[in-house]
């Protein structure tokens, strides 16, 4: 018995790797379709965009790189779908250089046939400078982005005629894999009195609750679950929804692993104590 527990405790980690791979792959092959429940943080973002008047514009900053793609790409698409289906104009940009090409892919994919570049959306791409870019855009977007991603002067896109700076933007959405939401809050949201919605990886989600509490951000789409909720709200079944079954099973596996590990830890510790007494 004790030997068995010891063996379990020191198991080769590659067995755990195989277990994790299986718990992710099998539910993808045989989906269960467990229902996703909406949380108020995600509802807040959805409701805000839902209530915007047709023809108003939102700014979506896609501050992420391919590493975080699986988490933030689905929510980017869901937000775009929502905006485009409601005839809301979208200005896309990124503060991460690795995000530049991704932003273009995302906007084009979401636009499909329902939105046209130059009229319904514009993709500005990447400029180095983080907070300096955020601050400068508050005065004049074309000062940091004289052209769009492809090199076309902004003055030539009909949509940008009515959009000079944050004053013409109804909502800033920062979809982020890093700490950029804090910058958007401090350098754009508070300074220019703009509402900010945040979509982020599950790693950093917990850290943004203080800003939700102060209403410095109006809503939070956290990780793949948040993306799945948003997909449910806009009634599109994307990759986040498809992944939720795998998430469920993998989470249960990790919880079980923690419990087993702790049981074996306590059994072994008691044995050590008994040995010492003897």
């Amino acid at each position, binding site marked *: 018995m004790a030997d068995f527990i010891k063996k379990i405790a020191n*198991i080769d980690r590659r067995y*755990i*790797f195989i277990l*994790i*791979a299986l718990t*992710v792959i099998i539910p993808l092959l045989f989906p269960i379709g*467990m*229902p996703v*429940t909406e*949380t*108020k943080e995600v509802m807040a973002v959805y409701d805000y965009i839902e209530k915007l008047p047709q023809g108003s514009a939102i700014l979506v900053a896609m501050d992420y790189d*391919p*590493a*975080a*793609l*699986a988490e933030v790409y689905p929510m980017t698409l869901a937000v775009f779908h929502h905006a485009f289906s409601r005839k809301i104009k979208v200005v896309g940009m990124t503060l991460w250089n690795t995000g*530049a*090409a*991704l932003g*273009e*892919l995302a906007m084009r994919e979401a636009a499909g046939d329902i939105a046209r570049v130059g009229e319904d959306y514009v993709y500005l791409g990447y*400029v*180095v*400078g983080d907070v*300096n870019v955020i*601050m*400068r855009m508050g*005065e*004049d977007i074309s*000062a*940091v982005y004289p052209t769009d*991603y*492809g*090199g076309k002067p902004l003055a030539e896109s009909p949509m940008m005629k009515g959009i000079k700076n944050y004053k013409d933007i109804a909502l800033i959405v920062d979809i982020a894999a890093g700490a950029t939401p804090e910058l958007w809050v401090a350098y754009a949201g508070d300074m220019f009195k703009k509402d900010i919605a945040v979509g982020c990886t*599950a790693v950093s989600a*917990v*850290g943004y*609750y*203080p800003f*939700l*509490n102060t209403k410095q951000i109006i809503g939070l789409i956290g*990780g793949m*679950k948040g993306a799945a909720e948003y997909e449910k709200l806009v009634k599109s079944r994307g990759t986040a929804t498809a992944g*939720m*079954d795998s*998430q*469920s*099973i*993998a*989470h*249960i*596996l*990790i*919880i079980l*692993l*923690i419990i*087993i*590990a*702790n049981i074996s*830890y306590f059994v072994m510790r008691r044995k050590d104590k008994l040995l010492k007494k003897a």
Partner: protein
Amino acid sequence: MKLRVPLILCFLCGLLMIVQFFIPHPPFTNMYEKLLDWAIIISIFTIVIGLSSLIKLHYTRIARKTPERPYSVVVFVGMAVMATVGIINGVNGKEFEWLFKNVQVPMQATMFSLLAFFIASAAYRAFRARTLEATLMLVAAIVVMFARVPIGSFLWQHIMPDSVLQWRENLPEDVAGWIFNVPSMAARRAILLGVSLGAVATSLKIMLGIERSYTGSGE
């Protein structure tokens, strides 16, 4: 000239940014806009620093004929191909996008997905209830893990009798929501306050030239 002028420059730039915050009147507003434009253009060139150390490292490896030599050649080939295609065909050109989508994206995404395996084995091997604090962390983690996936509410709604469900339709989600919004939020707020004071103090020291480690890079 070597040290004093940069320190004065640093102080003046910082001062102007502070002044503009409190005085929304020309000429400060115009100077502020110019300053931002310049800072953005200057920061383009920070790429030089990272790039040069990388090239140096791999060049030395090739020159010294280390066993890693073939890999360093791979680095240079990858760099040359991607940069050339991108500059010549444009970053929204088909070829550049193809390379990005099929070479860079899969590798970076896969590297990070290795973390899924490591977090599982870390949870198994390191996450032990050794002390009261560790136990609290463990319990909070398990509650959140259970509640943040659909199976949490699914199980709750299928195991609990109706009388309990009338009281709480989705207790796991409620508990997780409470943790995020109340105790965890309070702790993060305190961290934020402390770290912000630290950040302001550091910025002040940099502006005043008391903290000047960045000038060491010029020695």
